[in-house]
């Protein structure tokens, strides 16, 4: 426990010194805020471009705040996930291939402690970024598009967090096996396959974690609720498996001690 705490505070210090603790939340917040602002100004932007006939313009309806929040989640699903992957792709690989982990792992530090601390660090970064971004999007859309139901918005945000955490854990696992770019590619491919199977064959795999993302969006856009206990359970299990797998791989890997 003591070691995990030491390793974790080093992770946080490193993220602070490399400004990762700054840029990832900032980009995430921009991504969240962009959607409500865009939707607010969309009619004016279209009108200003001048090429659109007034009849068409009048047919454009301003979306409700909840719909905008669903669109925000949709943004997270593409660019947000990409950010999570980029922020995490070197998290273990960086230390493994540069050789810094060797000087740590010869001490009384187990691979599991090393991995758990790193995972906690990454998860902290992602939770902070996502939460701030979601709150900012909530704030802007409630100002620009109208009020949002507290319970529903909170619930949707929490459900979607499950999917984000899974994405972060998948990248983490892949970064233990592969070098940065390859880890990113593999995790994106994996997450895309999960999302695709969910949207193309929704009935086939009821416990698909990607269902969490869909369920959160459905909840906001009001198109019916889905039972998500299965996906939630599987997501939690998958996250645990990612950490356990990463720690197993780390223990059985040759630890490089020089670049």
């Amino acid at each position, binding site marked *: 426990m003591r070691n995990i705490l030491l390793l974790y505070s080093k992770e946080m210090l490193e993220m602070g010194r490399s400004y990762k603790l700054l840029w990832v939340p900032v980009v995430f917040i921009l991504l969240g805020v962009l959607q409500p602002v865009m939707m607010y100004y969309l009619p004016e932007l279209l009108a200003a471009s001048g090429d659109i006939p007034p009849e068409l313009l009048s047919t454009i309806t301003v979306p409700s705040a909840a719909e905008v929040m669903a669109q925000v989640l949709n943004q997270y699903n593409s660019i947000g996930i990409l950010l999570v992957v980029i922020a995490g792709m070197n998290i273990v690989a960086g230390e493994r291939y540069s050789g*810094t982990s060797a000087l740590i*792992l*010869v001490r009384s530090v187990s691979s599991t402690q090393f991995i758990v601390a790193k995972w906690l660090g990454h998860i902290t970064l992602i939770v902070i970024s996502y939460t701030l971004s979601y709150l900012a999007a909530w704030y802007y859309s409630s100002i620009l598009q109208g009020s949002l139901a507290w319970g529903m918005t909170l619930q949707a945000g929490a459900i979607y967090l499950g999917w984000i955490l899974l994405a972060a854990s998948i990248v983490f696992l892949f970064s233990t096996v592969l070098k940065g770019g390859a880890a990113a590619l593999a995790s994106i491919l994996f997450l895309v396959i999960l999302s695709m199977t969910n949207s193309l064959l929704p009935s086939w795999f009821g416990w698909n974690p990607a269902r969490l993302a869909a369920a959160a969006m459905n909840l906001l856009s009001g198109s019916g609720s889905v039972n998500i206990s299965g996906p939630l359970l599987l997501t939690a299990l998958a996250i645990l498996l990612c950490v356990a797998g990463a720690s197993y791989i780390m*223990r059985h890997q040759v630890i490089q001690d020089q670049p």
Partner: protein
Amino acid sequence: MIIQVHQLTKKFGERTTVKGISFALEKGSCTALLGPNGAGKTTTLRMLAGLMAPTSGQITRLGQDQNQGRRSEQNQIGYLPQHPSFYKWMSGMEFVVYAARLSGMSKQEAREEAEAVLERVGLQAASRRRISDYSGGMKQRLGLAQALVHHPDMLLLDEPVSALDPVGRREVMELLQELKGETTILLSTHVLHDAEEVCDRVMMMREGEIVENGELSDLLDKYSLPVLNLQLEYHSNPSAVNWLRSLRERPFVLEYEQHGGSAAITVSDIKEARAVILSEAAERHIPLQRFEAGTSTLEEMFMKVVQS
């Protein structure tokens, strides 16, 4: 006995880098691991440090078998890789404190020990600077500092001085001299002179096998050439030259070669031969200019072992 290695083997696919080596290290000894490039020295050290699981064989430390990966008792190891890499965003001080704390020291203790060890390796002035600003030699010293900070009872050093300039090398050698006795040291090196200076035991590896292992002095004896070289002063008196010539008849002489006032004598027992010749030369006031009993240097021994 602090560590015992039995039939240690490491395979990388088809290639066997370490071929079933066995040895033991005594507490407080300093052993040099010598061998040409690719002999398996680094692989051996990394297995001892627990960074690499052996394909087969056992490493037993202090009565405990710890073949199964990394475990907590490795706390007692200090390891310096050949090209250590650090968190460049930390200062030297921060890194050593971090390393000490991960080895179980309290915050206060880690700070004190780190300061002491940084001074010992000559980095106290640069201890607050970021490691990204350090030169190669400074990084090597920092590597040594992190290996020493928790007072390990075994130090594994992979080429500890090869990246240093002559001054730095001198300082590190002196530091190792101090550490000898309190810590068991196993160091790999190409610099034979350094090995000769600090180590009392030598292990030579070639193609993954230990080809020689023993006390440095014993090995030097074993590989010393049984040849005596003598040279008399020019214009020596005829009786001296006659004495020199008469050496040919001694029982211990195997071969004899003479050119004027100098002779190369291959003998069966170098100790006896040396004693006899020196005492006779002293008795007869032989004007000896040069006398050499052919002990080979570590370098000659190294060449012989490696090429045989």
